[in-house]
């Protein structure tokens, strides 16, 4: 996990955008196979405020729609469940990661390749908007750094 953090810190300097008390870091999107109609976006959202904050909406150009999702595994079955909002706890953070919470970019209008940057706008329940420049990476390269997404156990 440390090596991932280093990798991300080095290569994802761009997306670290801080507005008021909520900031986003380590934002990335795995490159999708050519058949994909949807892509997941992952990031860590930090909240330094004493109040919890909710992400109530995410949007991105070149996609039909964007949803907030959670992947869960129940009795060995994998499920994806749309979430009305994501809560970032007071003085805490929420990690969006494979096998957990993620932003689902649905209806790919234009295929993205590793190296592309997709701007994702998050809307908070306090009306604030945060622009996150999210880089596309080859999934393989990220797995290599993270001896596999350990899901919830990490």
């Amino acid at each position, binding site marked *: 996990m440390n090596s991932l953090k280093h990798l991300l810190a080095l290569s994802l300097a761009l997306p670290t955008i801080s507005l008021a008390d909520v900031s986003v870091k380590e934002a990335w999107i795995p490159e999708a196979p050519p058949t994909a109609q949807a892509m997941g976006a992952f990031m860590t959202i930090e909240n330094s405020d004493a109040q919890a904050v909710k992400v109530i909406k995410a949007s991105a150009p070149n996609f039909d729609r964007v949803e907030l999702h959670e992947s869960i595994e129940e009795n060995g079955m994998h499920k994806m469940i749309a979430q009305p909002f994501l809560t970032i706890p007071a003085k805490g953070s929420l990690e969006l990661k494979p096998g957990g919470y993620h932003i689902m970019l649905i209806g790919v209008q234009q295929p993205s390749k590793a190296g592309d940057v997709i701007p994702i706008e998050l809307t908070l329940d306090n009306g604030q908007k945060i622009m996150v420049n999210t880089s596309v990476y080859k999934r393989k390269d990220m*797995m290599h750094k993270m001896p596999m997404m350990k899901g919830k156990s990490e």
Partner: protein
Amino acid sequence: MNETNRNHKNLWMGLGIIAGFFIILIISVGVKWMNNDPRLANKVDASVLKIFPHPIAIPSASLIDKAGKPFDFNQLKNRWTFLYFGYTLCPDICPTELTALAGVLEQLREQQVKAAHGVLFVSVDQQRDTPDRLRQFVDYFDPTIQAVSGEESELRIMAQPIGAAWDKVAQFDEQGQPDQNNYLINHTTSILLVDPQGRAVGVFPTPHDPVAMAKAFTTVVPE
């Protein structure tokens, strides 16, 4: 006359001994293969590869492969297979799992593992996964990965004994109507290990770390 009889007797005795030897050999091999070697289960970390107490035969079903040809279940024979059920429009988990499987193949190639092996991706989304889509999807990860799909009933024949399951989940359009072409599928995420006799002998539970999986494979599979 006596000489000939004695010769015959010796010949029959010899044949009997040879036949007996083969019968014992066949029985011992059979017993070994009917049950998984219990020592095997102790050799690998069950959180990486869980060996089943008994191998589970995978029934043949009528499926179409990524080249649009009927899939010959003999392709599951004479080699080890990593078997995974999913669908190409699966947004997150299937690409992650196929990346892991491509990683296992890469590991085994790097280690020059001689035991024949391959990956089979079974799409449970026959409605949308045409052979062409299957090919584009798996080839993106590793062109040696085979992919198949088929009628729901045929898929269930193959999947049921090995516990692979899935459920279609309708998605609703803006008018609140179920969208016929835009649905998700909840499905099992385990990767099964199939032996050269076409029987599932174990399962790789999630999470799937290609390095650990390749190590478990080389521990279990004789060179």
